[in-house]
């Protein structure tokens, strides 16, 4: 029901109720006043009659008394009868023939009472009997009967007028209240419409201000509220844009973001997830039915959930992130790290997850661990090799040399022919020369002297001679650019990478030739080692270093990484292998005159 009808109905009801009460009250008051006035008038007339007949009554002049009351009845309208009880107890009346004896029993004045009124019902209608004593203390009374038809008629007429006026008032009031309600409710309806549109998101709607009353103030306040809402929504939208920018940045940075509303059962309901998170966990970013526990495998340590879905505020310094492993797209698993942070979302406790892909870091950490292990193993192997070589070769050569010297010594004691002694000495000499070479080789394997004295290019040349050519593999070392000395640790690392590459050629490539290209660029060093060997499938070489194989390649990559450079391996079965090393150089090295290009075969 519209407000205007409510107002009109309420006003009409109020008017009707007030009208009923008014009519009843006025009718009662008019009736009382009219009857009181009639009684007062009756008393006044009765007193006048009593005064008029007093002398004649006291003088017992009955004819005069009769004449007086007859004349008074004729001259006074509304009087139905007058009767007088005389001093002698007789009754004088204006009834003419006879007297209604019943009247004497009505409204008699007892001693001490000077006047009284009494309504009586007669066959001629209601009559007000007014009795007064002729004089106080005199046993003579005058009674005047007044017809009350006139009073009743007057009251009825008054009531009718009041009822008609009330009806008119109700009609006018209803009509007026309807229009008043319309006038009042019109801006309220506009306000309601605009509020509805506002609720539907049309924040630019405003109510035209046409009035300066309370409703106008309400509209003004509403417009101010709408303006404030627009501003707040704009700020919210801006904040949301920034928020999305942050989330997109997180997406771009490869970080997953998810928002969970904490539930009472220790779980969290997914409210939002960015694309990265949704991609990793295979969920719809806005799937309301997804919970945190349904996304993750049950951890071995149940306390992990307390860190992922903290039931209380974060402790100072935050909560340590949780590392999780998820199946990756390929064979490699995905290593993720989840940092949970509790906060309030839409006035409810919530938690936000920042998820980072730490697979690379994880692999690098494993690689570093394996490299350390390999280094230790290599050191032990190197010691073993040196010991074995010293035992098997140098010690045997020295023992043979000692034996040869003993033979020479015996020959001298036996005075053997000089030729025999010279021959023996020659053998001893030869053995010592071989021993010296072996010791030199051992020393070179430990630390090439050339590398420290002549630099990287000379060391690689020497390495090619000793590793490849000594095994019958044709080696071609090419140098491009201005050869220059590097830092010692750079030269050692690059040398060890090339040494490992050549070692792989010797051990696995079954190659006939190899090309070692060295290019000194202004800001980097480029080395390529290519062979024509049997090659291999790089995808079959496990990327994870936990298999024990591929440690050589891993060591090469690790050394290149320590130099800040890169190392790539290009190979295929039957296609040979090419290892490319690029090492950034911090600053150009001083130019070496005449070394624009060297080619050594």
């Amino acid at each position, binding site marked *: 029901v519209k407000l205007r009808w409510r107002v009109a109905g309420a006003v009409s009801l109020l008017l009707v109720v007030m009208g009923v009460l008014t009519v*009843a009250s006025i009718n009662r008051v008019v009736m009382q006043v009219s009857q009181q006035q009639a009684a007062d008038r009756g008393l006044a007339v009765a007193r006048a009659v009593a005064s008029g007949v007093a002398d004649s009554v006291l003088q017992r002049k009955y004819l005069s008394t009769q004449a007086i009351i007859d004349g008074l009845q004729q001259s006074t309208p509304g009087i139905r009868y007058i009767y007088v009880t005389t001093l002698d107890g007789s009754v004088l009346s204006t009834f003419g023939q006879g007297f*209604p004896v*019943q009247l004497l029993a009505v409204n008699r004045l007892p*001693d001490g009472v000077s006047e009284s009124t009494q*309504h*009586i*019902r007669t066959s001629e209608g209601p009559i007000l009997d007014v009795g007064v004593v002729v004089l*106080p203390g005199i046993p003579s009374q005058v009674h005047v009967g007044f017809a009350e038809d006139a009073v009743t008629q007057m009251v009825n007429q008054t*009531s009718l007028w009041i009822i008609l006026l009330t009806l008119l008032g109700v009609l006018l009031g209803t009509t007026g209240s309807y229009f008043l309600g319309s006038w009042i409710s019109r801006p309220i309806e506009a306000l309601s419409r605009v509020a509805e549109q506002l609720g539907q998101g049309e924040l630019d709607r405003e109510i035209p201000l046409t009035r300066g009353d309370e409703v106008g103030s309400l509209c003004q306040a509403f417009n101010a509220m709408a303006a404030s809402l627009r501003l707040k929504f704009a700020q919210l939208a801006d904040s949301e844009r920034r928020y999305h920018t942050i989330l997109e940045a997180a997406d771009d940075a490869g970080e997953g973001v998810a928002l969970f509303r904490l539930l009472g059962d220790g779980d969290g309901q997914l409210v939002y997830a960015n694309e990265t998170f949704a991609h990793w966990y295979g969920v719809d970013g806005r799937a309301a039915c997804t919970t945190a526990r349904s996304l993750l495998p049950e951890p071995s340590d149940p306390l992990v959930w307390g860190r992922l879905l903290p039931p209380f505020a974060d402790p100072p310094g935050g909560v340590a992130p949780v590392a999780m492993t998820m199946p990756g797209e390929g064979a490699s698993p995905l290593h993720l790290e989840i940092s949970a942070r509790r906060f309030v979302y839409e006035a409810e406790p919530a938690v936000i997850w920042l998820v980072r892909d730490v697979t690379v870091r994880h692999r690098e950490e494993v690689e570093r661990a394996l490299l350390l292990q390999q280094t230790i193993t290599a050191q032990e192997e190197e010691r073993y090799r040196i010991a074995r070589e010293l035992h098997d070769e140098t010690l045997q050569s020295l023992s043979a040399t000692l034996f040869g010297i003993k033979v020479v010594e015996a020959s001298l004691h036996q005075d053997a022919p000089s030729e025999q002694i010279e021959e023996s000495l020659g053998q001893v000499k030869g053995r010592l020369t071989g021993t010296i070479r072996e010791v030199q080789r051992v020393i070179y394997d430990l630390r090439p002297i050339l590398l420290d004295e002549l630099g990287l290019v000379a060391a690689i040349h020497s390495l090619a001679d000793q590793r490849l050519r000594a095994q019958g593999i044709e080696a071609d070392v090419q140098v491009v650019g201005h050869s220059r000395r590097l830092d010692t640790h750079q030269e050692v690392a690059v040398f060890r990478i090339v040494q490992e590459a050549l070692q792989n050629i010797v051990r696995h490539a079954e190659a006939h030739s190899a090309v070692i290209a060295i290019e000194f660029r202004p800001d980097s060093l480029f080395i390529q080692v290519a062979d024509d060997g049997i090659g291999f499938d790089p995808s079959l070489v496990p990327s994870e270093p936990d298999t024990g194989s591929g440690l050589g390649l891993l060591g090469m990559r690790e050394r290149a990484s320590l130099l800040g450079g890169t190392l790539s391996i290009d190979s295929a079965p039957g296609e040979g292998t090419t290892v490319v090393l690029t090492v950034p150089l911090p600053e150009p090295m001083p130019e070496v005159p005449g070394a624009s290009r060297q080619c050594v075969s």
Partner: protein
Amino acid sequence: LAFLGLLLLGLQGCAPEAGPLVDLSERGVAPTLTAPPAGSPPVYTFSYDHRLEPTEDAQMYASLLDYLTGHTGFRFRLYVSHDSQDLVSGLESGRIDFAAVGALSYLQAEARDGVRMLAVGRNSEGQSTYRAEIFARPDSPIQHVSDLRGKSFAFGSRTSTQGYLIPLIMMSEAGLRLQDLREYEHTGSHAECVDAVLSGQFDAGALQDTLAERLAAERSIRIVATSAAYPSSGIVAGTGVPPEIAERVRDALLTLDPQGKDGPNLYRWHDSEMPDGFAEARPGEYEALRGWARQLGILDSGGGTQP
């Protein structure tokens, strides 16, 4: 529905108050109203000599009865006598218990039976005597009582002391008799006597002193002669009144204070013959009047005779 209720309410509100049903068409002969039935509290009848207008007398003595009721607890009812004879006979027969009477009425009643004077009225000077005044219109040539010879004269009531007995005494003392008057008449009361003289119907008249002095002060009349002082009017008890009742009424009368606290409750008491209340009646004080009444022959008959 509301309007229907409104109409019904309005119409109902116009209904007159309920009352006893009387059939005015049923006529008959009205019975004579009688006194209250036996067993009712006693009501003592009080009557009086007519002195002023009937209604004035009635209202004046009604106020005195209110005073007596308040001080004795007795109930009184005024009885308006037909005339002085009716009053005297009423006192004698017991129909009238108490009465305010002039000296002549008292002497007449006392002469017939033992009617007791309870208290004598006191005039404005505090004396329990009063006088009579012979008066004429202010422009009348009558200067002395003797000038009344050949004039018309208006007396008061035939049983009035001040309106008849004392003026007769004054005329007698002046050597006049009723026959010396051109004509005379008993007007019935002091007021009617004044009206008769002022209207020119009579040349002179006789009046009680208090009323005459007030009218003379107002220059409505001129006093021709003033009588000697005679015992005033008083309140008498009839033969049927028990002594203890009469005693209580007398005590109440003696405590009446018209000039003081009781004045406002009394009606025109200053025009009465006892404006200052009452004094105890002294035995023998009416002897002079009784002698004149006998001499003038009006004691027993109550009517006027030639002095």
